[in-house]
């Protein structure tokens, strides 16, 4: 089974040279720490920065320089700043090649829910709806089940949707799943995790090939 770092490492393997990438809050943010050698990518944050670098050294935080998670950051050489309309022009205009974000639920036709639990939690969608509606390449980083042990990989989402038919790939602590033809397809399993466990924790329709390779991290 993977921890959060493991999920981030696995997603980092999907990065391709020359891509502009938007990372959501939480596990997706960690992906930046595991860029494979020889790969050059640039991170966009929708609050208006391209070319994000690591967190600043203590004492060098700048209140005017944050990412979309409101964390203090630095920028790399060649970075740029822009307003929110320009930022979402990059996203809607498909100039950003990959979006990685978290989710509460994902369904087998690629629907995603991650912004609201009616009557309980309403944080808002932030930029998630713009991101999932426009990006061609969306990877969801999430845990396979919720805290109550119920599968988050579903036939149909039960929570208010963030976007429809948009998610292509899901990476959880147990597996890599691809979504196509209205079904989940098991691509890889996490080290030490059996196919049976993944099947039992997946509520949605899951296509399991004869051989399921273990992730190489």
């Amino acid at each position: 089974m993977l921890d959060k770092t493991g999920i981030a490492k696995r997603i980092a393997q999907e990065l391709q040279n020359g891509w502009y990438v938007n990372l959501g809050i939480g596990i997706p943010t960690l992906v930046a720490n595991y860029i494979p050698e020889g790969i050059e990518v640039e991170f966009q944050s929708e609050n208006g920065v391209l070319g994000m670098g690591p967190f600043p050294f203590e004492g060098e935080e700048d209140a005017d320089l944050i990412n979309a998670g409101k964390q203090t950051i630095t920028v790399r050489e060649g970075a740029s700043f822009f307003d929110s309309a320009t930022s979402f022009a990059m996203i809607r205009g498909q100039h950003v090649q990959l979006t990685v974000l978290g989710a509460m639920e994902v369904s087998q036709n690629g629907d995603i829910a991650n912004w609201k639990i009616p009557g309980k939690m309403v944080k808002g969608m932030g930029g998630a709806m713009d991101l999932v509606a426009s990006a061609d390449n969306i990877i969801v980083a999430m845990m396979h089940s919720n805290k109550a042990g119920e599968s988050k990989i579903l036939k149909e989402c039960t929570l208010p949707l963030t976007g429809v038919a948009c998610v292509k790939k899901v990476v959880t602590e147990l597996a890599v799943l691809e979504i196509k033809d209205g079904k989940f397809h098991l691509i890889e399993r996490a080290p030490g995790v059996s196919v049976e466990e993944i099947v039992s924790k997946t509520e949605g329709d899951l296509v399991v090939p004869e051989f399921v390779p273990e992730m190489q991290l």
Partner: protein
Amino acid sequence: MNKLVKNVEEALIGVEDGMTLMIGGFGLCGIPENSIAELVKLGTKNLTCISNNAGVDDFGLGLLLQTKQIKKMISSYVGENDEFERQMLSGELEVDLIPQGSLAERCRAGGAGIPAFFTPAGYGTEVAEGKEVRIYNGKPHILEEALTADFAIVKAWKGDTEGNLVFKATAMNFNPMMAMAGKITVAEVEELVPAGQLDPNHIHTPGIFVQRIFKGEKFEKRIEQRTTRKRS
């Protein structure tokens, strides 16, 4: 044209109960702190505030929520504010949550004389309810309408007496679009210089969008999530 006003009191003359205000900033970054403090002092009520976020409990727009001066919030993300969540879930506060990119573009459109536009964001979700859908390039899009405000209140790093503005880093965010969409736009700046001191090549918001400019007395610039790394 000289846009200079003496102070925040003069800058906010004319703000009345029931008005719609745009407030720049993303989280606590690039918010007009001095103007928000003055709004608390003025006690103006029943405000509709258009702002990406609602501050935190004791800073930013959270201050106006505590004093119950806000009737309605139009935002994209409000997760860091307990009082906001309480007022929303109890029905005291009207809330219109809209996707961040749509919010930015609706402000831009409002300032640019474009009454509405189609965007894919929100199709198939609650956000699309009651909105016209059209297919472009084989993909469904929803019609979103422009936003304007009685007052747009923005914060810039530098400004000159003509109202030209320069923003710093990610403190730019929503400020330029909101500056365009206010009937009266108020800019508070950290550094105020005479006309001619800013390089015209480097102006982010041209003074035509700004009606009143003043130098903020004090900027706390609170950090919401202080994240650092250790020196190795």
